[in-house]
């Protein structure tokens, strides 16, 4: 029984390269329960809630309004979960996010009247950044455990919020300021002809991939498939005519999660961050500045918390000294439900977002089903554990299955042997 890395560890890349797995195989791998368990858990929960709500004669659970609402409600916590995932991947831990968000909100609200929104927002972001930097510097340079440091800053920053608000609710009184804040957060953007847009995008990307592959001598098949799919989707648009109508915070979430995911997945920064979290000493000896990456993760988290704080301020138009208290646990739960390891080196921001969606889907489900408050706690707790169990066990089974699949193809030593001629060509 050797300690296995969490399933998520085995995501993405490993089925791709050298062996030259096909595009389809890669997609199939990404969809296995062991990899995408959290997604299946979400689907299951939504399915159960939809069934229940139709049985109880309530309005359709999957109505566009409700789906838009769930996305809107979870977006701020999901944004926090994205940044927290980055810190967790780097091998650290941050309990102070909710306090920092509240601090950012309090800053924004108390300054927006006098400075205007852009400046107030800048100050709030700067405040978040400073909090993150303080966390990072103390944890990395003094070398104290991140749990105790961020517990300390959580308390201290909450104290700052208290001082700033003087124990009362702060509101944005100035109507001008209020309007600016509302514009930042409230309302929906509609993207018409979403299918056409996605289709054309896929067409362009596919063509580019195919051309690149041909240039580097690879197979253009993958690009062609993408392009073809894009074409089909684009052609369907006039018929189906979907439009995408989401709240502004949902768009913020999509952009932030998308960019963060792409950076982690496709850039040197991402690769190094995972290396730092997985084995800091090996990363350091490979020439990676471990402190820079870890402190950077904290700073990003602080900045993100400040930003979410401003969004909260804009959403609630008020913040009281205890505002957002306890949100850090929800955020951590989202990240860990998404399969992020508490010990660093593993995690996916997209799955953390799904983790957040699970938690908010439950809350929303209770509201829609009008379930008695007394039973909600027991259900949430149980669902969280069961969701985690489902894909822990699914991941384990997948592994066993793989053995059966591939047990018959052993390598012979000749194949892997060191051939003298080849060695000459080293360096």
């Amino acid at each position, binding site marked *: 029984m050797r300690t296995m*890395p969490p399933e998520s*560890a*085995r995501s993405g*890349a*490993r*089925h*791709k*390269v*050298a*062996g030259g797995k096909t595009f389809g195989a890669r997609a199939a791998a990404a969809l296995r329960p062991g990899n995408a368990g959290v997604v299946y858990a979400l689907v299951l929960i939504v399915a159960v809630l939809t069934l229940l709500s139709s049985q109880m004669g309530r309005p359709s659970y999957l109505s566009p309004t409700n789906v838009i609402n769930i996305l809107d409600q979870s977006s701020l916590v999901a944004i926090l979960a994205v940044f927290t995932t980055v810190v967790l991947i780097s091998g650290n831990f941050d309990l102070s996010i909710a306090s920092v968000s509240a601090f950012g909100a309090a800053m924004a609200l108390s300054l927006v009247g006098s400075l205007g929104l852009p400046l107030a927002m800048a100050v709030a972001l700067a405040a978040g950044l400073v909090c993150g930097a303080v966390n990072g510097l103390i944890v990395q340079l003094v070398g104290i455990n991140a749990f105790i440091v961020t517990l300390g800053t959580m308390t201290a920053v909450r104290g700052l919020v208290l001082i700033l608000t003087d124990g009362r609710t702060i509101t944005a009184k100035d109507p001008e300021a209020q309007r600016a804040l509302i514009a930042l957060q409230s309302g929906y953007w509609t993207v018409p002809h979403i299918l056409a847009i996605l289709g054309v995008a896929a067409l362009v990307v596919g063509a580019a991939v195919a051309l690149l592959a041909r240039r*580097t001598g*690879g197979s253009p098949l993958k690009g062609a498939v993408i392009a073809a799919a894009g074409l089909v989707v684009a052609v369907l648009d006039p018929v189906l005519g979907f439009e995408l109508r989401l709240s502004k915070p949902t768009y913020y979430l999509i952009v932030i999660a998308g960019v963060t995911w792409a950076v982690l997945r*496709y*850039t*040197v*920064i991402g*690769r*190094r961050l*995972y*290396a730092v979290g*997985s*084995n800091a*000493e*090996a*990363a*350091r*000896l*490979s*020439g*990676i*500045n471990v402190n820079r990456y870890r402190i950077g993760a904290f700073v990003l988290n602080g900045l993100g918390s400040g930003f979410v704080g401003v969004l909260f301020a804009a959403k609630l138009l008020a913040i009281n000294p205890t505002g957002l208290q306890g949100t850090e646990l929800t955020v951590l739960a989202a990240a860990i439900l998404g399969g992020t390891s508490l010990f660093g*080196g*593993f995690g996916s921001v997209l799955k953390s977002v799904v983790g957040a969606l699970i938690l908010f889907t439950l809350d929303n489900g209770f509201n829609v089903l009008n379930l008695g408050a007394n039973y909600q706690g027991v259900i949430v707790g149980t669902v969280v554990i069961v969701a985690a169990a489902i894909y822990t066990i699914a991941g384990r089974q997948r*592994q*066993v299955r*793989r*053995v059966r*699949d*591939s*047990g018959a*193809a*052993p*390598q*012979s*030593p*000749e194949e*892997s*042997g*060191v*051939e*003298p001629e*080849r*060695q000459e*060509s*080293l*360096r």
Partner: protein
Amino acid sequence: MVDTPLLSLEGVGKSFPNGTVALRGARLTVLPGSVHGLVGANGAGKSTMIKIIAGAHAPTSGTVRWKGEEVVWRDPGAARKAGVATIMQHVPLAPTLTVLENVFLGAPGPWRLPRARRREFDRLLRRVHYEIDPDAEVADLAIGERQMVAILQALAIGANLVVMDEPTASLAEGERQVVFDVVRRLSAQGTAFLYVSHFLDEVLSLTDRVTVLRDGTVVEEGPTAAYDEDRLVQAIVGRDLLAAERRAPAPVAADAPVALAVRNLSSPAGVRDVSFEVRRGEVVGIAGLLGSGRSEILHAVYGADSRARGEVLVDGRPVRRGPRAAVAAGMALVPEDRNAQGIVGAFPIWKNISLPDLASLSSARALPREAAEAERAERAIRDLGIVCPGPEALVTELSGGNAQKVVFGKWLYGGARVFMLDEPTAGVDVGAKADILDLVRRFAAEGGAVLVVSSEFEEILAVATRVLVVREGRIVAERPAHETSEEELLMLANGFGGAHDAA
């Protein structure tokens, strides 16, 4: 009774969840009181077999017999109770406990640290002629000392069969001798040993019988007396090996440009005013006893020890402190503790290999080109003969020697000019060792400078042009490789003789 084997394995197979088949119908027979050698190339399945014997893995097929009776170990505790003590290859100790407590980790009895244990420990130390602080915390020990603690742990339980998986891989000569003495003495008293090692001379001199594994199956089995080194090598790698033996290179011309210059380097970790130079084309060996500070010197030179003070120049240009600057200046470090310092366990082989040189494998130095990385990994797998299912295999799933090759492979293609190798062949099989030493020579031949730390003086002499002897963090002697011998190096390392030529 003498006829019943103590332990026998029949038709044992083992496949891992990732699809690797490590053993296929393997058999093994250990007679009571004998010393049985188990040899094979990296990834042949030795450790896997040993884990099955120890009850740490369940075999997928086949039977294990202990004292004639078929057994299925429920857990390692069951094997221990039955009388099988195992020293695993990746020394599993509890780092936050003391040496004494680790040695008696599984000991029964109601009390945590009875006085009797302390006396028992003293007796044990006296019996094996070894000295170690019983109250030192294992986390503070160097890797070699930890290996000794693991050995003591296995000896302490007084087993019928002691299984040793590469016990000497990270030991220096002195400790190695301690282990040999123990094996000889205890086997004379009736304890059987199963001994895994890549040092074939050890196997030849120590064991009564030997089993050769190749690719998960037993290819040969017989009395050790029937083998000599060449035949054993042939059996292990399945081909003749070009002489890996001593080929002491000639000293480099005195006017070759200095690639690495170290001046007055000291560190609180135990490096005391070290100065030396390595010229292009030179392989400089660093010899010393366990804990003499060899690793600390490499870390100080590399800048990994931020408290080190002194000057380091590469090609005449001073290098800022820190591994980042060192890598940028063309230095490369292969650390001795590969699991803690060398590999990123969560990464597949290809991501490990590209890690130090990732930027140059990336478009615009920012977007890694995975195809190029994979290509490099495949090249390393070919060049170094890494036994693995493919570049996507996780390094934690590799056998010890193959993981070591991955660490080596990290630095091969990135244009490093100064190589610092800390025990580069620890746990590497004979074939691969020859390949690695060849590589080292070639670095030098192509104008690189190499610094090699090795506990095997023989290996140092085989590859180095010059040897520095380290004692207590100081360079106490310097010898051209072709003018010295293992015996002399050992004397110097122990603080005898050579007072006239302090560095």
